[in-house]
């Protein structure tokens, strides 16, 4: 049986975060939380292969109790089981402490129901670090395929997968044995429309709640703030810029506005030479 595991994160929708212009503070009220978009595509890929091969998709996340809604969203997409690892002692975790918590949880799941493929999104949109997936792979000593764009083959018989990943200069097709860990680009799979049974199931779905003590007993020195080598020293807001001249085309006419802009650009020597307009 094909058993896929997907690690997900519930994140604030960073596109709707605003800064209070008076206080320069982050306005957190009313900012909706969403399933990290890359993770949603990772879940879609896992479900797609479960449907092809027959099997099961387990979702795991570390987060506050409210992250239940992100797990429900995964069930709506066709996942079978959701686990929320949640404990106050985990709070303040950086990527190293987070990868410890997830890796040990995955090790436990795998010991009871062997996993062939582990999926993560390529990064979460709140921190953008892209470090947790690789961290889990290292801790579990698994083959790692980052920036996966296409799963070409999952070979249950011989125990390997062929995965296409995107690098800066080309794509590579990587062959790796089970279990392997992928971090996924959005191209990996389309988000499916929920089927009615999955939708109904998700509405009432109560994920399993795991803590720092059970079923995995975590080492207190490796979790939360204590287990996090990095710490925030200070925070601030990005420096404000003041813009330059603005030409209103409605007032001077489009042709004149463009001519003024082009003249200004070409008056700068380095730009004129780039544009091949040097005299």
């Amino acid at each position, binding site marked *: 049986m094909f058993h896929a595991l997907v690690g997900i994160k519930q994140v604030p929708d960073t596109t709707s975060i605003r800064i209070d212009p008076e206080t320069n503070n982050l306005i957190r009220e009313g900012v909706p939380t969403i399933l990290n978009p890359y993770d949603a595509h990772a879940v879609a890929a896992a479900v797609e292969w479960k449907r092809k091969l027959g099997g099961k998709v387990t979702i795991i996340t570390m987060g506050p109790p409210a992250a239940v809604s992100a797990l429900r969203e995964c069930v709506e997409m066709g996942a079978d089981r959701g686990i929320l690892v949640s404990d106050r002692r985990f709070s303040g975790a950086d990527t190293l402490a987070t990868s410890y918590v997830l890796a040990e949880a995955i090790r436990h799941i795998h010991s009871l129901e062997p996993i062939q493929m582990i999926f993560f999104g390529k990064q979460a949109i*709140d921190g953008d670090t892209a470090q947790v997936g690789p961290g889990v*792979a290292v801790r579990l000593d698994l083959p790692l395929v980052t920036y996966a764009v296409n799963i070409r083959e999952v070979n249950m018989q011989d125990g390997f997968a062929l995965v296409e990943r995107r690098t800066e200069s*080309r794509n590579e097709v990587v062959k790796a044995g089970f279990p392997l860990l992928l971090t996924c680009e959005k191209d990996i799979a389309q988000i499916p429309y929920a089927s009615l049974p999955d939708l109904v199931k998700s509405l009432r779905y109560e994920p399993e709640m795991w803590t720092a003590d059970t079923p995995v007993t975590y080492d207190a020195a490796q979790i939360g703030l204590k287990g996090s080598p990095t710490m925030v020293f200070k925070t601030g807001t*990005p420096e*404000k810029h003041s813009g330059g001249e603005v030409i209103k085309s*409605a007032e001077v006419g489009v042709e004149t506005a463009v001519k003024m802009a082009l003249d200004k650009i070409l008056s700068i020597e380095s730009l004129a030479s780039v544009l091949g307009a040097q005299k």
Partner: protein
Amino acid sequence: MTRRFWVFIEQEDGKAHPVAWELLGVARRLAGEVKDELTKSGDTAVVEGILVGQDVEALAQEAIRYGADRVYLVDAPPFKHYLNKPYTSALTTLVKKYSPEVFLVGASTLGRDLAGSVATSLRTGLTADCTQLDMGVARDSVKKLLLATRPAFGGNVIATIICKNHQPQMATVRPRVFNAPQPDPNAKGEVLREEIEITPEMVNAQIVEFITNADSSVKLEYADVIVSGGRGLGGPKGFELIKELADELGGVVGSSRGCVDAGWIKYDHQIGQTGKTVRPKLYIAAGISGAIQHKVGMQDSDFILAINRDPHAPIFDIATLGIVGDLYEVIPALIKQVRAMKETRK
């Protein structure tokens, strides 16, 4: 004691990624920032490059010209192409042997894959996508620490991260965030060969095929001219006009995140916090409102020309020059005038 400032010299097919040179410049500056501590303690500070590959020794010399005092070279067949585990193993072994204080890696696709793995296997801290790096005392530290500053929450917040009790203090930096130093043709340095044993079980993945990706030719980070489109284009067809202007100016096409999310253009073109960081000589932003997440990726461009219908669009706050108007009138006029200019110069 030697305080080592390390830079990973990323290469592919024997060609260095320019971010390695940019980081050598940063490492040199950081080593200089602890100078006052050196005179007191009698320590020395050195900048060292870590180069892994096959037949890449020429790059070690290049690294020296860009400021490395010493290069540790791992040059063997298992390292011909980048593979996570062998490379992670090589870097982890070298770190354990030499105990660098700071380790900088480019936040390229390869560098992010590698840095996260190396930091985890060393159980140390890693700060991704830094936009500013300094050495300074923090939280009563005995020595100066790496102060790693990066945007968070989509660029709405700037956070300075420290890693006080673990070494090396690791950071990744995206290409083009810093300028590369001028190479010194007379620079002297040392190349030390390192042997790393790679057993067959350490090769847990293999590349079975390379596919040339036409879109990967989009080298936004190092382009001199970028013409970018945003949601104001109204649809994917708008990028045809953007491309026409870019071609006319010898530039490449960029995009805001909105257009990529809407499926109008591929991710490779995305500029901003979750895309690429660029600093071209000329950046033309057409129909881009200028959300913070976009601005952090392009605000260091030399000249920003913004075209937007909304006079209150935040893009005008960072634009060198703005035109308030309909991009479907302004850009065709711009194309026409650039063509006319070229004709007269012939």
